[in-house]
């Protein structure tokens, strides 16, 4: 067994939680994830939303979308499946009705967006550019839209296709673009590289894993679209692996990590795997201020472990010491 890295505990006040993601300075790493924070207003009942480092909005498309038929969600062991169908108010209504509230919050506003085809992606990026001086900080490009018809799957799984799409969107907007990756791709680091080389300032991951539940009484799938996206603690080990794979292969690519984050320890795992900022998704449903609790727990845990700042530990995971070599003939000492 490896020994803990021995550093003396420090005072929580001495912990510096500030972090940088692609040149963006954040007061701490904790944001909220797309589709799990709507457009923010409802959370004001439960928390001081401006305490977040940032938030990602529900995915926005050029035109409003009505979403999928019912049922749309079901619970699984330590997770849930959703098939909301990317229901959203559309770019225009977003800018007019939702953005003003977000702009006033003084948090990093990431607008998650997508389109039904490549042109729609570009159009959406163009439309949202109007929000560049009205509070939008980042466009988070969701290239994993399970519900998009023809060809859509390739945006998220084929590096060349992702590169082309990212490039067009980057050229269409003055806003920085972060590409949100899907865990359903075979080679996630290749996807990250494709997005980064096309001009994205960083990547965020993971989106949900395609999954299914079955109601044995009705003999129907538990979400109406047959398959939906799995999120929550169940997926954390997969998310951590992908974050670490990208960071190891491409240490320069800024990573916003997510997938099942519920505690300060989860957050620290993602930072150590190579993420420099984080999003909390599903946890908001059961506990609206989850991201702020996680921030507080992260501070306490870092203090306990004597970690004074974030850059010190981003991607710090080492290998285990090798065991003494084994020689089958070796006699006992």
């Amino acid at each position, binding site marked *: 067994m490896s020994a803990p890295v021995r550093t003396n505990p420090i005072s929580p006040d001495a912990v510096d939680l500030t972090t940088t993601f692609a040149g963006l300075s954040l007061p701490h790493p904790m944001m909220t994830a797309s*589709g*799990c*924070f*709507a457009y923010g207003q*409802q*959370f004001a*009942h*439960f928390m001081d939303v401006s305490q977040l480092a940032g938030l990602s909005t*529900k995915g926005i498309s050029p035109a409003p979308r*009505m*979403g999928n*038929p*019912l*049922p*749309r*969600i*079901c*619970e699984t*062991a*330590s*997770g*849930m499946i*959703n098939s*909301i169908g990317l*229901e959203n108010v559309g770019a225009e209504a977003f800018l007019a009705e939702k953005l003003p509230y977000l702009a006033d919050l003084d948090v990093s506003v990431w607008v998650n967006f997508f389109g039904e085809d490549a042109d729609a992606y570009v159009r959406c990026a163009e439309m949202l550019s109007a929000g560049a001086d009205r509070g939008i900080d980042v466009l988070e490009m969701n290239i994993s839209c399970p519900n998009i018809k023809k060809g859509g799957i390739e945006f998220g799984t084929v590096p060349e296709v992702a590169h082309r799409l990212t490039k067009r969107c980057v050229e269409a907007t003055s806003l920085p673009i972060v590409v949100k990756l899907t865990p359903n791709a075979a080679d996630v680091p290749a996807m990250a590289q494709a997005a980064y080389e096309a001009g994205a300032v960083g990547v965020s991951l993971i989106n949900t894993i395609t999954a299914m539940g079955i109601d044995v009484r009705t003999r129907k799938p538990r979400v109406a679209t047959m398959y939906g996206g799995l999120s*929550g*603690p169940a997926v954390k080990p997969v998310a951590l692996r992908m974050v670490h794979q990208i960071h190891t292969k491409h240490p320069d690519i800024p990573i916003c990590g997510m997938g099942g984050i*519920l505690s300060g320890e989860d957050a620290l795992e993602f930072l150590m795997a190579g993420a420099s900022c984080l999003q909390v998704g*599903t946890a*908001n*449903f*059961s*506990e*609206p*201020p989850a991201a702020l609790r996680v921030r507080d727990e992260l501070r306490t845990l870092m203090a306990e472990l004597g970690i004074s700042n974030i850059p010190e530990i981003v991607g710090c995971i080492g290998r285990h010491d090798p065991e003494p070599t084994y020689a089958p003939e070796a006699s006992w000492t």
Partner: protein
Amino acid sequence: MPPSQFGAQLVDNQALSGGYFTLRFACDAACGAPLSGIEPGQFIMVRGEWGREMLNPRAFSVLDAQADGSFSILIKIYGRGTAALSALRPGGAVTITGPLGRGFSAPADATQLLVAGGVGLPPLHLQAKRAAAAGRPEAVEMFYGGRNADDLVLTEPLDDWGVKTTYATEDGSRGHQGFVTGALEARLEAAKASGEAVEVLACGPTPMLRAVRTMGLAHDVRTLLCLEEEMACGFGVCLGCAVPVRGPKPYKYCCSDGPVFDAREVRWS
């Protein structure tokens, strides 16, 4: 009252007939009485200290809420969450989010026919209690159905409040034999004949609500349905609890637009 999230402890867990339980909770001292102003039909999301295998909280209508911060719910074991709640002992801690959604409003001119089945009782029970407390027990009438007499719980208070009740059981062991909708149909016919103004407020299993809706639409009386959909958040952000509606948008949300919907609005075949 805007919703908040707060802690509560079980005070009392009462097993009733038919597999029902009433659970009474006290709010953490610092929270005051966040549910005391609740409307019948409003609900709370409940999470116990059962780890994260059950990731999301469970929705329950409020059966009653007092000014001292205590409140109660009526449950029946459905799956793991309700099983865990039914086994909770006094002192057991839960986390509550609420009050959530929009409930029924108090009776105005029309007599409210309250149609309840199964765990759909709480909103209508509280509606009856409020009417009685306002000195108008005659403004509501309870139609309450179940499979058998054991399925009908908490009926004594209704008598105490002076609320008129009609019971129906599938096996005839209490009240009319048959579905509660049979009794409702007769009542609606009578009201039509006498020209009496009535409206229908219903909560219960979906097949019951479908029948009530059809009946209400046919009689052209205002019919309000308190719906159940699977929920993750309960406060309008996950968009999981969509209810198909007519009107300018295809869906509304059970948790934030409802759970009470006008029967005419609901887009059911």
